[in-house]
């Protein structure tokens, strides 16, 4: 098999690093159980979080979940469909700003700007914002028809710069440099992401962060289940073959340009949703945020998590979004570090250094990302458990294959 040169994302054919070993069906019962029970337990824990943790943690959680949605979208596009994109920040911005514009009220903004806005019901505005992001993706997808691989990735970067330029300059929509405030998401006067009306559950006041947590949780669960199913089903298979060999995919019956467009649309809709949620968390959207660094961070999320995997995208989002905050939150505990303000290595610098090292470490340990790392650890544990159990651990598993020669004694003429 010769290497399709379009596979910019790995060097050669043969087994994909970290792809699952064959013959795992023997343990599928157990893994099935684990894969069913684990998410349920996780979900219950996630539902309980707002009753126990403070605003900082809730906000961190909301940001991680929002990023996870964005990362799932990007993973669909890059990992599954093989369309490298660095334009994700742009689509996030489209979602965030479109929501603000659809739901926002006209009026004076900062710096002498008069803002416009449609004052639509927030939920409708959110749906429209996601749709707008999808349309933006659709409009960009023809470029992917012509430009491939890394070139496509870096070409899409142009969208980020163009986008930021627009955000700064279209100030009646975006508020310009100072951005614009984010209307609360609400249904019939009940704010899903704000504080109005006041609400107390089991003695815990349910303010904006608590509510946002649940909104984000619902979104992330729906988004990941949806993505997982798409990947396992008909569209997913078509996208994967398109990634591996575009021409062959067409011949096999996959309408390639339509699928490319669909991948861009779906991915940017995910980004749009992530943008809406992030806007809720920030309560103000500023153009500065939606830059190159953000795009690269999303790429880092899906690679660190494991390309093409939904779980990976979520893990990667937690890693890239959560880790720096956690590190700086706890870096104060490292008392041997210099005081902030001195020129030594202070906690802030240490946190950043650790973050950088962590990125390198994850990838060196497992280029397949956190999912692959997790899978490997699980396998290692299982092997150890199996070895301790009955059966002969030393005997090699049956080589797979089939016999061509009938088992029949034949004089071996040895040389």
């Amino acid at each position, binding site marked *: 098999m010769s290497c399709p040169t379009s596979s910019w994302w790995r060097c*050669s054919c*043969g087994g994909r690093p970290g792809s699952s070993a064959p013959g795992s069906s023997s343990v599928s019962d157990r893994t099935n159980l684990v894969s069913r029970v684990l998410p349920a337990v996780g979900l219950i824990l996630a539902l309980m979080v707002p009753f126990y943790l403070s605003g900082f943690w809730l906000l961190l959680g909301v940001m991680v979940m929002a990023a996870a949605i964005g990362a799932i979208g990007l993973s669909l596009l890059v990992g599954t469909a093989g369309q490298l994109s660095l334009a994700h920040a742009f689509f996030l911005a489209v979602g965030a700003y479109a929501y603000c514009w659809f739901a926002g009220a006209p009026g004076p903004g900062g710096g002498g700007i008069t803002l416009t806005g449609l004052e639509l019901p927030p939920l409708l505005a959110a749906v429209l914002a996601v749709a707008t992001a999808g349309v933006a993706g659709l409009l960009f997808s023809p470029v992917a028809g012509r430009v491939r691989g890394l070139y496509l990735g870096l070409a899409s970067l142009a969208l980020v710069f163009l986008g930021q330029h627009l955000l700064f300059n279209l100030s009646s929509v975006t508020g310009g440099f100072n951005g614009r405030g984010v209307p609360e998401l609400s249904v019939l006067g009940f704010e899903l992401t704000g504080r109005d009306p006041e609400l107390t559950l089991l003695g815990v006041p349910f303010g904006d962060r608590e509510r946002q947590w649940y909104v984000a949780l619902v979104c992330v669960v729906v988004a990941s289940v949806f993505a997982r199913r798409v990947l396992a089903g008909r569209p997913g298979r078509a996208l994967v073959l398109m990634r591996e060999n575009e021409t062959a995919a067409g011949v096999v019956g996959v309408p390639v340009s339509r699928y490319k467009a669909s991948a861009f649309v779906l991915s940017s809709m995910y980004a749009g949703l992530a943008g809406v949620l992030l806007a809720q968390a920030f309560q103000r959207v500023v153009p500065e945020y939606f830059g190159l660094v953000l795009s690269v961070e999303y790429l880092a999320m899906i690679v660190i998590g494991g390309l093409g995997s939904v779980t990976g995208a979520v893990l990667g989002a937690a890693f890239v979004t959560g880790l720096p905050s956690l590190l700086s939150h706890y870096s104060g505990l490292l008392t041997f570090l210099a005081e902030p303000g001195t020129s030594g290595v202070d906690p802030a610098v240490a946190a950043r250094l650790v973050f950088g090292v962590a990125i390198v470490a994850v990838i060196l340990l497992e280029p397949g990302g956190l999912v692959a790392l997790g899978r490997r650890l699980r396998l290692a544990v299982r092997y150890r458990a199996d070895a301790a159990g009955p059966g002969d651990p030393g005997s090699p598993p049956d080589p797979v294959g*089939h016999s061509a020669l009938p088992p029949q004694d*034949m004089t*071996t003429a*040895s*040389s």
Partner: protein
Amino acid sequence: MLEVGRLAVHYGKAQIALHDVTLTVPDGAAVAVLGANGAGKSTLMRALSGALGHHRGTVDEGTITYDGRSLRGLDAAGIVAAGVVQVPEGRRIFTTLTVEENLRAGAVLVRDRVARTRRRDEVYELFPVLAERREQRAGLLSGGEQQMLAIGRALMSGPSLLLLDEPSLGLAPRIVGRIGEIVREINRQGTAVLLVEQNAAMALSVADTAYVFEVGRVRLSGPSAELRKSDEIRRLYLGGDAGPEQHGPTKPGERAPARWSA
């Protein structure tokens, strides 16, 4: 002389591909390896040429020595430097390079410019179509042309042991014949050859000895002439022209799927 002793190889997690394989290629000899799909022939080649790592495979035990020197610890480039060169399965030509550059890439270890040019001309002589296409991107060649290029490229380094993994794959009968001749010719000039082939007739006509692999083990081995006479070999690898009906599915009892009606 290449000596492989009790070689065992596995891929990834416990996918055993070779088991207790012992085999020798005497200096200047031509040895053929036959076997069904998945028998482990390519795995053997990869183990010899140091390419297993690229497939997440590892040698578990056994020895590989060439001229008394162990190849097991060497990387692929080191093995080439020792004179052992492989034509990989599936051609693996450099698709973005031109034909000429592919040949040049095969000769990176050859310092002598004159020798390089001479070998290149020899390759062009062997495969004139490559000379016609010398400026074309290799990836655009036809399947058979790519196969010729893969063989030519391996010849460029002037190996003392040539490992050929299905060199006749996808070649027209006339060229297959020529490949056989070429291999014989290379061999006559002193290069030892280890040849994996599905075209058993050609392989046995070229090789002095042959090994038959089955599910990761050496099932049979012996002089080509003797193996040629074996009924089993004739039936499975050479075939008296029996026609398709003589060859049932490899597993009995498979029904043909009925016509699909949606």
